């Protein structure tokens, strides 16, 4: 094993310390709290599996889990496909490609709250530009966030514009594919579609796995801000996701034990989904050797 240089250790220490203090330690404490009754003020009281039993009987918890899984199932394939499409579109040098790449990345760096507030206006059922355009075209204009049938799809739609990071990752992935491979295929008479299906996609699949796994883990949490700002979980719990459930249980109901138990369940659900993604992509990766 190579010895770490002192500079490397010095540079890593703040991050390791931060990761321990801000992630590992709170996660450990949360794990402990999930087996207690804790109102935030009195001492936590150990109650075994009771929080998990309460969660099992709580219809709102299942609504939150169902909504979160529905969001992930709808959003992730679309987000990964969107990032892939953009990466393919803007991978080759062409006129003003830098501008297009920046434009594709830009929505990702807008702070979440500002992004949510902007969309709140864009999706306004009566005065928003989207419905104005739909009415102009003679198309039905849904109430979006005010309609329980449309609110979750609307949040999925909104999330599709914040795919800048995935776009950059796949752009790097495309650059990683040696030009000689494509050239050789072309010489052998392969068409564009054949190159895409037989070369680009297989070589890109590890990147797609990475992106999907990352998105699964992120999506369980990233629904908080849009739901909190735009819908407050409504109408009628249609956008009530797990982070909102955890937040409400802890800071509204002062049931920190139950909130921690829900967090643990979400963690397990994330692990399961990540495993599922690996399973789906199994055999599609490539071996560097």
């Amino acid at each position, binding site marked *: 094993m190579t010895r770490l240089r002192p500079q490397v250790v010095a540079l890593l220490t703040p991050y390791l310390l931060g990761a321990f203090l801000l992630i590992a330690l709170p996660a450990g404490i949360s794990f402990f709290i999930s087996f207690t009754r804790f109102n935030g*003020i009195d001492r936590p009281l150990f109650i075994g599996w009771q929080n998990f039993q309460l969660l099992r009987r709580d219809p709102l918890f299942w609504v939150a889990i169902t909504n979160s899984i529905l969001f992930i199932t709808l959003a992730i394939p679309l987000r990964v496909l969107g990032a892939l499409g953009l990466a393919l579109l803007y991978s080759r040098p062409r006129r003003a490609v830098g501008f297009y790449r920046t434009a594709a990345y830009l929505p990702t760096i807008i702070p979440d709250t500002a992004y949510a507030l902007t969309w709140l206006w864009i999706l*306004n059922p009566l005065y*928003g530009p989207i419905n104005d355009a739909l009415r102009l075209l003679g198309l039905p204009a849904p109430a979006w966030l*005010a*309609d329980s049938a449309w609110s979750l799809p609307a949040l999925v739609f909104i999330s599709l514009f914040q795919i800048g990071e995935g776009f950059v990752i796949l752009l790097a992935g495309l650059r990683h594919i040696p030009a000689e491979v494509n050239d050789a295929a072309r010489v052998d008479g392969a068409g564009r579609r054949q190159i895409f299906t037989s070369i680009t996609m297989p070589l890109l699949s590890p990147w797609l796995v990475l992106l999907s796994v990352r998105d699964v883990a992120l999506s369980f949490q990233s629904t908080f801000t849009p739901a909190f700002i735009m819908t407050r979980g409504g109408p*009628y719990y249609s956008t009530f996701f797990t982070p909102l459930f955890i937040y409400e249980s802890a*800071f*509204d109901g*002062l049931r*920190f034990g139950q909130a921690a138990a829900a967090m643990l369940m979400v963690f397990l659900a994330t692990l399961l989904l990540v495993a599922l993604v690996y399973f789906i992509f199994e055999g599609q990766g490539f071996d560097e050797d």
Partner: protein
Amino acid sequence: MKTRLLVFIVLIATLVLSACQPAGGSISFMVFGDPAELAAYQKLVDSFSQAHPQIQVELIQVPGQSDYRKRLSADLTAGDPADVLLINYRRFAGFANIGALEPLGAYLEKSSLITEADLYPEAVNAFKWQGELTCMPQNMPSLVVYYNKDLFDSASVPYPAADWVWDDFLFAARALTKDVDHDGVTDQFGVGIEPSLIRLAPFIWQSNGVIVDDDSNPSTLTLDLPEDLIAAEFFVSLQTVHHVVPNADEEASEDSESRFINGRLAMFFNSRRGVPTYRESAVFDWDVAALPQKDVPAGILHADAYCLPSASKNKPDAWTFIEYANSAEGQTIIAASGRTVPSLISVANSPAFLDPNAKPANSRVFLDTIPTIHALPIHPNWAEIEESASEEIMRAFYGEASVDDAMLRAVQLSREIFFEK
């Protein structure tokens, strides 16, 4: 490089020193409300600072009540809440139940500025937890109807009478709901009312219904009783049948309160808290009326109080502030801003509150209806019960469920929250 290092060290030293300053003589005061309400509290703080220059007060504002409650929970959990808190009577029990609030009865007994007898008993009783006065009631407001007199005049509809009934109200609401340009879209609504339990409750009491099985020890909501359902049907029909209230899309596009302030909604149900904003922003003539009645006259209490958290590090100064804020001088300042119906009987009956030159001209309606005011039950989980029931009421109100189904569901869900959580 050396200079930079020096500047850095000085900065760190300043930060450390400022953090180590003694806490004595300074308190924080956390309130909810919009900018106009905040201005009223700022006046109170300024006046207090003049009377007690040795005590510094930091005013913290969180706009919405729901966010306020969550911020408060986080602060209490962190052991670092503001020294003086403003809490509604429907929400204080959750905090009192876990010992987060210092009971104030003993403080009040020693006060030379105020006594319990100076305050409206309805407000005092709303802040008793297990028989003990927990917070000092700041106000005594109830739900009223704010109405745009200009819109009533232009539609030749008589202003609400003191003894108006549901039918009169519905007649006015229909006459004031208009599609001005005949494009099929309603431009002016007769009524704006939040589809929530706190708005529905007075209609239920007026129909001889009850909200819970036992006011002092509730175990379930009773919204599925026949009397309650009559009230709920009427309440919901305002939107689903008569269309005198904005529907879900219209409400999401522009909320009823904004419509009222912009002069495009005739009657808006609110407590006293809307007054500072309406005084500042409404450019039309407006006033308040009592709630329309049915079988039994009934209104609903909306009181807030100053509370002292047990974790406060400066309780003596915090009490000094609460005592001042609830003295005739302090309550006069807030009453003059329009924000409160004073809980001090003397100030409520003074020109500070009843000034005929300040809107609303008919402020007396808040005092006249006190004898018929009902309060919601005091229960640690009440805020959650109310939110859960309001979701069901909203579903019926916007036509996504029948009244019977929604009320039954609200009752079923309430049992879980009363007991299990």
